[in-house]
């Protein structure tokens, strides 16, 4: 019987795999319209007395004003990713779309065919295998975990993991209902729109790439956040026990991170950059403090925070932040990046990776 809680790949005692997964490109697309927290809170129907910016650290988020949807955000991010990676769409074997929202043509949610098939067609990857992964805000990292597994064993050569989240409508819906800080729709006000894409490809063993992907679902908490269409409002509404999720994530993540680090044989200080799911700046800082207490040490750099500028962009947050760090020149070739997923489910996942010089240099920062 396995003695590690996480499903981890590579697995302890697993057969050697012929390849490694290299990150060949990372792209994103942010809508140009900025919506500040104060402007959003000014639209609430009731006088709420909530200082959302102080509570979450979110100053503003980007929003589609109806001209962009999940499909167009994903497509733009995919094209950006291909350009950054200098790869053609025709060379992609598989497109995995991982968004929660699947809006195309305004606020029409497409359940069939897959959003991946739309994106593949739009970018010219017409022969690629396509399917969607749905795993709340852990969607993209779940897609990365599947793609990594297939690339390592030679099932696929190049995989595009993409997501477009046109999710800010949930915030607009929530603004009509929220009365006070105890509202279950408070988390909806943190949401922002974004597209993100990661291009993963086959590389020789020993090269830079994904070191480890580990995931679990702590399903006792699966009903703490539910989103579905309700009433006469467009899109959906989301009901969250934010405190419950935060508490569960805080108490369980250190143990799981210990498991990953033990499996890879590194210490917390060997991690250069930590990119967690972006829900609130305050929650991220608290989480890092908890981690420091548990490990008695810290990663080399403070956790990346982009939630202040972009809000919670659901499944795209890690990639949006990764691109931000690459463009800022903060990530150097070979440095270890830990992407930590915390999502409804309760999904907890860790993807450890490092980026090679070729990719880092494409963002314009050459040492």
């Amino acid at each position: 019987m396995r003695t590690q809680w996480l499903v981890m790949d590579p697995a302890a005692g697993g057969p050697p795999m012929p390849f490694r997964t290299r990150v060949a490109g990372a792209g994103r697309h942010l809508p140009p319209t900025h919506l500040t927290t104060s402007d959003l809170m000014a639209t609430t129907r009731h006088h709420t007395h909530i200082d959302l910016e102080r509570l979450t650290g979110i100053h503003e988020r980007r929003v589609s004003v109806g001209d962009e949807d999940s499909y167009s955000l994903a497509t733009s991010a995919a094209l950006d990713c291909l350009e950054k990676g200098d790869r053609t769409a025709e060379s992609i074997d598989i497109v995995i779309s991982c968004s929660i929202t699947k809006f195309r043509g305004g606020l029409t949610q497409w359940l069939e065919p897959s959003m991946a098939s739309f994106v593949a067609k739009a970018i010219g990857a017409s022969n690629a295998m396509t399917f969607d992964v749905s795993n709340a805000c852990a969607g993209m990292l779940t897609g990365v975990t599947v793609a990594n597994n297939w690339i390592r064993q030679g099932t696929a050569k190049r995989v595009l993991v993409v997501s477009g989240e046109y999710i800010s409508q949930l915030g607009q819906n929530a603004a009509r209902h929220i009365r006070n800080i105890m509202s279950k729709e408070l988390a909806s006000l943190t949401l922002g729109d974004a597209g993100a894409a990661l291009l993963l490809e086959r590389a020789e063993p020993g090269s830079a790439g994904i070191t480890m992907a580990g995931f679990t679902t702590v399903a006792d908490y699966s009903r703490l956040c539910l989103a579905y269409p309700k009433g006469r409002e467009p899109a959906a509404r989301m009901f969250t026990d934010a405190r419950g999720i935060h508490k569960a994530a805080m108490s369980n993540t250190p143990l799981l991170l210990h498991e990953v680090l033990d499996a890879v044989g590194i210490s917390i200080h060997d991690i250069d950059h930590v990119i967690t799911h972006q829900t609130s700046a305050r929650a991220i800082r608290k989480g890092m403090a908890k981690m420091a207490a548990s490990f008695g040490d810290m990663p080399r750099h403070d956790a990346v925070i982009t939630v202040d500028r972009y809000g919670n962009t659901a499944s795209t947050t890690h990639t949006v932040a990764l691109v931000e760090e690459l463009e800022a020149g903060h990530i150097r070739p070979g440095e270890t990046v830990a992407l930590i997923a915390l999502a409804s489910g309760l999904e907890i996942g860790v993807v450890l990776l490092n980026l090679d010089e070729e990719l880092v240099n494409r963002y314009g920062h050459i040492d």
Partner: protein
Amino acid sequence: MGTLIDQVCLSHGGWRDHHSALRIAVKAARNCLDIAGRHPNDVDLLVNAGIYRDRNLGEPALAALIQKDIGANPENPHAQTHGTFSFDISNGTCGPLTALQIVDGFLKSHAIDCALVVASDANPGRGMSERFPFAPAGAAMLCGWTDDDCGLQRVHWISSLDEGESSNATVGLVDGHNVLRFTESDTVDSQFAEAASRAVDECLREAQLEIDDVDAIIAAPNRFRFRAELAMRLAVSEDRIIVSDNNVHTASMAAAFVQAADRARPGDRILLIAAGAGIVAGAALYRVPPTRVSRDHKPVG
């Protein structure tokens, strides 16, 4: 070497749960584990490939709710044992074949020892769908790994992307209510069959086999015009292609597999074919192991 489908169970919605894909999936999953003599905690990976669900739920993954309701390691992580990872995938009637391919990868890398693929669909709720076309039904497939020369072989995929023109399902506001609607063209069956036959060609070419070398053919969806068109393109008689009995959606491949497994002998080759909206189609060979899937798989209602 390949993934073995150790047990398959089907379930149908009754008067209490015909609007709940969740409950239908849970019924199939529990029954599947019971018959296989496995504990829910044995499941390392749970992949849900169903699409039409309670209230058109968008978050979390239905798989997480299924995991909780069957009791597969739902508690806080603890040392010296393993947990369960669950998520949803969506690929229309090709979903279960996609899920099997995902499971196959993790079994092969020894990241997991035991996986459960579930698929169920039901009318999302009163007034939430316009002419919902499928019977409430679900399926669960319990999977393990074998190092022998049997189980699931490589899955071959064909894309003939048409942006949903041939078939689509959307949720959008109609008269102030979010309603699930379905659209399909008159040519959808021939388009599905065309893509499926191309996937079969690739699959058989790689295996260096002819269609007559295959002992059983199963296909999803269970549309009779699709079956007729596919039979014509594969140059086989219609009755050689096994489809599920009822008008089920993502559970149709598992339902057809059950019928094929009933008749199969050790060593038989079963050809799995799926086609769906996109248009996407997949085909794979499944070599029946010496100890095959249990016959005790009557649908639970």
